[in-house]
């Protein structure tokens, strides 16, 4: 079993559980599956006494209702799960398949991005859609999932200039991470495609896995409900 987290209060009703990563290591998919599962177990077991949880990368923040539960009870439950859990068989996470159209008309940075990476748009699409990603955290916007790790061949820094409006559904890359914008928002990631169906806030949980399924423009329009003239 992996090392026990550091557990410390950060405010009157909120605790932070932190796992240490090896120097220079990327966040670990199995660890985030563990913390995502731990957060959902806490919500299920203690119900309304758990006000909020934020599982992300290598930590879980847990906020409790201090009038209805003692932290000691929650911590005891956490420690006992962590000592008993079988990482191979006990973790509950969902797998998502997300259709995405890599047409440069929708992937607003595709031309620039593929030139930068010395690849064709088709190669970018194929490399991006061949891996299974892990949801390392959900945040920034309701339902915005941070997915990793992008193939090194597609790793690219954020755009030099921030885009005032990234269209909803945009699929984008920043460093070794990728994401789907669930709503229109300012953003600096490199946009390489668009998903016809927008994720809702509750769709993704930390620890879930996800793969992108390439679709053509006709299929995109059909799924997005675009009526052709």
């Amino acid at each position: 079993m992996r090392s026990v987290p550091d557990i410390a209060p950060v405010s009157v009703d909120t605790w932070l559980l932190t796992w240490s990563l090896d120097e220079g290591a990327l966040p670990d998919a199995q660890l985030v599956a563990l913390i995502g599962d731990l957060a959902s177990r806490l919500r299920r077991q203690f119900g309304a006494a758990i006000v909020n949880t934020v599982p992300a990368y290598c930590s879980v923040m847990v906020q409790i209702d201090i009038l209805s539960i003692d932290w000691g009870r929650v911590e005891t439950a956490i420690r006992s799960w962590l000592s008993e859990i079988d990482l191979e068989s006990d973790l509950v996470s969902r797998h998502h398949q997300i259709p995405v159209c890599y047409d440069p008309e929708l992937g607003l940075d595709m031309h620039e991005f593929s030139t930068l990476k010395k690849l064709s748009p088709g190669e970018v699409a194929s490399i991006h859609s061949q891996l299974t990603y892990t949801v390392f955290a959900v945040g920034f916007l309701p339902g915005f999932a941070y997915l990793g790790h992008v193939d090194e061949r597609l790793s690219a820094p954020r755009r030099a200039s921030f885009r005032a409006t990234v269209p909803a559904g945009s699929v984008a890359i920043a460093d070794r991470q990728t994401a789907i914008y669930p709503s229109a928002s300012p953003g600096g990631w490199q946009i390489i495609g668009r998903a016809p169906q927008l994720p809702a806030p509750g769709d993704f949980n930390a620890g879930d896995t996800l793969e992108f399924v390439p679709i053509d423009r006709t299929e995109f329009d059909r799924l997005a409900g675009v009526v052709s003239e």
Partner: protein
Amino acid sequence: MTQVCRLTRAGGVVQVQDLGRKQSMHHGVTESGAADRHAFFWANRLLQQPYDTAMLEITVGDVVFDILHDVRVALTGADLNATLNGMPVDGWQSYNLRRGDTLEFGFPRVGLRAYLAFAGELDWPQSYGSRSWVEKEQLPETPVLKPGGGVSFTSIQPHALQTAVPQRFVPNYTEPLTLDILLGYQSHLFPAETIDAFFESEFEVQPASSRMGYQLAGPKVTHDIEQLYSEGIAYGAVQVPPDGNPVVLLNDRQTMGGYPKLGCISQRSGAALSQRLPGAKVRFRRRGYDELVRDWGGVLQFFQGVY
């Protein structure tokens, strides 16, 4: 269901607020909720109703309500030069309003956010167990209260004797503010001299402050902590970006972030901070976990108790 009032002018901001969303942050949906819980709790207390009943949070002011049905209300928080049919009304009291009355809020005299509670239950949709509204999120299920929009209630309570908050519980939003902080998060990674200097410094509230966070400026809080993996941000977290100007994150904060954090200010301190205007001076005072729990637990017990 009865329409009780109509918003006829909204120069400032009028939002429905309660104690915020539950179990929403793992979806990236912020907690939200009334910025000044002290004023919020007292408004419900004045009306002898459950401490978490939703009400209106009025920021800055320049707001007019036409009253369409007899109703009992309570007014707490900032003094926004409120008038009833043109006559000044004091805050931290309940009032019996009549159909045809006009309740008007001017501009801030003292503080920034007023709370207008009604004796009854707001007919307003909920999301994650809350009626609170967050501008940047625009969750489809939480509508916006706009000029011309009505506010309806169920189970409206009849008129009753006027009640007032005892003077000793009425805060003074103009006095210098000391924020109670529990050191935590990455505080152990900050140099000891930086922490000492932080507690000796005075900071000024900056104009970019909002329900999301209060931006402070003063002596720079220096550190060379590297960017961290993002983690959950608790209410009141004091984060220090590379420019060394601390930001206190409040109700509409982002759910996670990677800047180093010193710890969190208390709920009580956050409530007082949210009433400060740009230019206000604040300091920090280190407090222990046990005393903060006793303090806030006592507040919650008092307001959750018999009403």
